[in-house]
């Protein structure tokens, strides 16, 4: 039986001086508030928070600049090279990027991608005149551990730019250190399918009213809720239900994302 590692993560206890330097770099001038849960600074239109180890969002550096709303139109989305350079310089300067693990069994890898977002603007009632308008550019990190994707609110790096000068939002949530906690017997996709089937079956139902349209195995870093801070593997199954009124099945039915532990 195949085994899958369960990983233990540790988040950084950022020092006040370092936090103040990050805030200064982001243009904040204000009083630093420090509690056991978080470090915080508020500027005129912006705020920066770091969630300390042991808190619900431990490891999350969160920044928002509210000078303009994210929906505000801009002339053009900031260029790929400029936002990537800003991001790399920022993460390197404050040592906030993803870190390798010293444990041999753990391989951390990441790649950055840049996503330019445009809105669709509809200016006539027939929908024949839909125009595109630049909105924002996001720098996104795709994180992997042992070739498995890592995601969730506490394993995510997103910087949102309205101009190339600086981001308007930062959501940077990473671990400082990662080690092997234990290896557990792993469920196969077939076993997960059977579990989903058991969960969705209704008594007396002869017709299967759903189909699995996708499944992925990832490490998911959710909110911390006590004990060792574990990074656990989950299957995420995407299910589509048949709309009983859509006899000919001509259109998409309701879908659901089901999270299932990947271990026994």
């Amino acid at each position: 039986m195949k085994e899958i590692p369960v990983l233990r993560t540790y988040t950084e206890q950022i020092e006040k001086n370092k936090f103040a330097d990050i805030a200064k770099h982001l243009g904040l001038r204000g009083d630093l508030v420090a509690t056991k849960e978080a470090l915080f600074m508020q500027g005129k239109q912006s705020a920066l928070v770091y969630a300390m180890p042991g808190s619900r969002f431990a490891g999350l550096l969160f920044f928002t600049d509210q000078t303009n709303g994210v929906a505000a139109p801009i002339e053009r989305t900031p260029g790929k090279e400029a936002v990537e350079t800003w991001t790399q310089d920022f993460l390197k300067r404050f040592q906030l990027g993803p870190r390798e693990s010293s444990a041999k069994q753990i391989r951390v890898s990441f790649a950055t991608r840049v996503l330019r977002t445009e809105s669709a603007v509809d200016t006539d009632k027939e929908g024949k005149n839909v125009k595109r308008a630049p909105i924002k550019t996001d720098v996104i990190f795709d994180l992997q551990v042992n070739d498995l994707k890592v995601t969730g609110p506490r394993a995510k790096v997103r910087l949102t730019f309205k101009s190339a000068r600086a981001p308007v939002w930062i959501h940077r949530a990473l671990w400082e250190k990662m080690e092997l906690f234990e290896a557990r017997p792993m469920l196969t996709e077939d076993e997960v399918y059977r579990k989903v089937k058991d969960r969705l079956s209704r008594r007396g139902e002869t017709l299967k009213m759903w189909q699995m349209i996708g499944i992925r195995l990832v490490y998911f870093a959710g909110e911390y809720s006590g004990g060792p801070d574990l990074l656990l593997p989950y299957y995420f199954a995407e299910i589509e239900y048949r709309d009983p009124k859509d006899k000919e099945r001509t259109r998409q039915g309701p879908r659901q994302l089901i999270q299932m532990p990947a271990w026994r």
Partner: protein
Amino acid sequence: MATVGVEWVNDYDWLPKLTYEDKDAGGFYDELVHHASWIGVFNWGDSNAWEDDFKRTEKDGHAPDWADAVDFCYFTGHGSPWGFYFRSDVPDDSIAESDYNSGPLNGDLRLGRNHLNWLALEVCNTLQWEASSGGTTYNAFDRWRASFEGLHIMCSFTTTSLDLDTPGRYFAALLDGRWPSVIFGLPEFLIGRIPLRVIDAWFLMTSITQPDWAEAAVLYAGKAGADPSNDYIHGCGSVSADPYPHTYRVWIPHAC
């Protein structure tokens, strides 16, 4: 005084049951009522959550008495590009449908005639950009454009999203500015409040709760002199005039 109403369904009788929708919607309601001085008008769940509460009067619905009687309405349960779903044994039927679901302009929602400014649908796929029916593709404007009759902003997802207990509470805390306390555990007396715009709050909430392959979206309507893209909720910042009759609609996606 600003008003809020929420509806949620866990106990579906024709779709799989969900788990956390009561806490999800309840968190939104409680945050605004207990911490932002909003008046809570309704918190209906399961068999008390009715499609009829969202349906326009021309279709014998009672939206003006419920969904359209409050400033902010929040629904959580199942959804699809064609609408959002209720139990099958409640008035009037099981789907608050978009246009082009059962007919070109047969959608249930015509909101904002009475009071509603903001509608959050914490459900899967409702704002998916395109969806096909009978070989024809309809975009989000085709399906939802006519729903805006004074409504400012509709918030939802283009993809599936996780069934969680926290989105409503976090979203409301980002809206009323208590997010440093609610999300990060900082004492409010040290920080004060930092309200965010409705669209910013929705997008940031989805990044704080969903996996990174999920995609949120907003749809808003506007006209000269009424641009809701910068709306804050009542009591927390500026709110645009009602954008009706609207001259443009805007759809914005956001990778969570």
